[in-house]
């Protein structure tokens, strides 16, 4: 993005986005069914959460509404990866079948062009669901509503979402080296399901892994603590915005490194 400027990319993004939405709308039934599918996924996720708390009143000292807050937080912070970076799922097929080469011939940033091609509107339902959950938990926990708190929430949500994006980018980029990287991508995607639990339930080894190696603790736990338990904020919570930015940058470099060494299939 250095040489073309931010506005230039914004304009291109708008144009590509419009094309994508047009093409999605031409399969109207598919769009409607997919949206229902997405809503159903969130409802089912909530039902299993609810069933769990019908049997158990708290997990490791975290009550129902606190867990609900974590749940909503993780839903919102995984929305950007769902909406903006969904094309990662097609990467391995495009790479294997050789179609990826078309992205290499555009005079704009390769990563940007590839990711901007698909915008997944379905994710917006999840966003609404997540925001609703956070708001409800916020209300039931009687947390103070101040401008500072809202700003904190937004900043930490955004940086948390970068962590998930980074994980997904890195997992998708493995397909430049491996034939069938679906399982890696699927594994990274499933990890997010465990980001909604407090990291304290794990023993030190896994706490270390989920903080530093597969940093899912930064998707919901560390950033949420800033708002949920302001009396005892660990240092890592304050670091989480930087963690998000650094991880995103690293995953971008890794993705580009793979993409630039791609030499097509020869067909």
């Amino acid at each position, binding site marked *: 993005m250095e040489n073309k400027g931010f506005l230039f990319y914004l304009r291109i993004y708008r144009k590509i986005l419009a094309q994508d939405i047009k093409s999605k709308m031409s399969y109207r039934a598919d769009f409607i069914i997919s949206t229902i599918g*997405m809503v159903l996924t969130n409802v089912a996720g909530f039902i299993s959460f609810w*069933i769990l708390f019908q049997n*158990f009143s708290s997990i490791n000292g975290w009550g129902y509404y606190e867990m609900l807050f974590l749940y909503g937080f993780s839903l919102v912070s995984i929305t950007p990866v769902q909406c903006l970076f969904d094309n990662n799922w097609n990467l391995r097929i495009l790479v294997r079948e050789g179609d990826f080469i078309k992205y290499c011939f555009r005079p704009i940033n390769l990563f940007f062009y590839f990711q901007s091609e698909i915008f997944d509107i379905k994710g917006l339902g999840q966003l609404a669901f997540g925001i609703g959950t956070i708001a409800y938990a916020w209300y039931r926990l009687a947390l103070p509503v101040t401008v500072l708190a809202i700003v904190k929430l937004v900043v930490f949500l955004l940086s948390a979402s970068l962590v998930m994006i980074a994980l997904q980018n890195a997992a998708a980029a493995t397909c430049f080296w491996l034939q069938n990287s679906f399982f890696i991508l699927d594994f990274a995607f499933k990890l997010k399901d465990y980001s909604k639990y407090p990291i304290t339930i794990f023993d030190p080894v896994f706490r270390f892994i989920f903080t530093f190696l597969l940093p899912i603790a930064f998707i919901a736990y560390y950033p949420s603590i800033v708002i949920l338990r302001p009396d005892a904020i660990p240092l890592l919570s304050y670091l989480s915005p930087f963690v998000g930015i650094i991880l995103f940058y690293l995953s971008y470099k890794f993705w580009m490194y793979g993409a630039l060494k791609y030499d097509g299939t020869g067909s």
Partner: protein
Amino acid sequence: MNLKKYTSLLRAGIMESLNYRLSALVLFFGNLVYIAIIYYLWRAIYASSPTDVVGGMTFTDTLIYVVLASSLFSFMEMYFVWDIGRSVQSGKIALDLIKPMAYRDYVFWSCAGTLFTNFFSVFLPTFIVIEIVTKGAIDFGMNLVWFIPSVIMGVVINYNIDFFVGSICLYTESIWGINMMKQVIVLLFSGATIPLAFFPDKLQSIAYHLPFQSIYNTPLSILLMHSPSVSQVLPMILLQLFWCVALTLFTSLFWFISIRQVTVNGG
């Protein structure tokens, strides 16, 4: 009956999946991480509970149930709904339909190879790990004998549901959404996410009237029994058998009607 055409498809499937040895390795290690997460999660949940037995299940029961449910899921999930959907969109289905074999059988036996290798690379290792972790909590008796036919029928039921969903794709040309809905409903009502024993009464009775619980809940409940008597197991097995027959008939009929929908434009 000429079995050779089936066995050669099976062999081809096995060889194809053996080609992706690295992905089997990733699957295996991913599975280990998953078991660890599940272990700590449920340990924390049970530690916060005032009683050791919740909904008739101890921590060990729940651990075995949840872990094996997920490994049964990755062993049974054949992802062929995507293949059917793609064949419809690309027109390849026309070629599949003129093969000297019923399409149903063709799809099943093409996937059977993956099923076979998944059994050895996913289910068996998980089974052994969980048996070690729980210090031999699973009996080696009649429960294991009953478990085998029960799993096989689970595979058949799961296959039929997938095939039904694949048939719907002929109408909607939507793959992602339909598949998503299926997965959510199956995972929730089969007990794969949360054991059915934890469900509130009303939801539980709904789940028991649906075919999905026969996929995961029945085999796993049988496995968790200690030296079960025939009268205990037989009703469960018969119910599975009923669903096998009913769903096979229904999905065959539905496919027979739906296939007229297919239009392929040239090629």
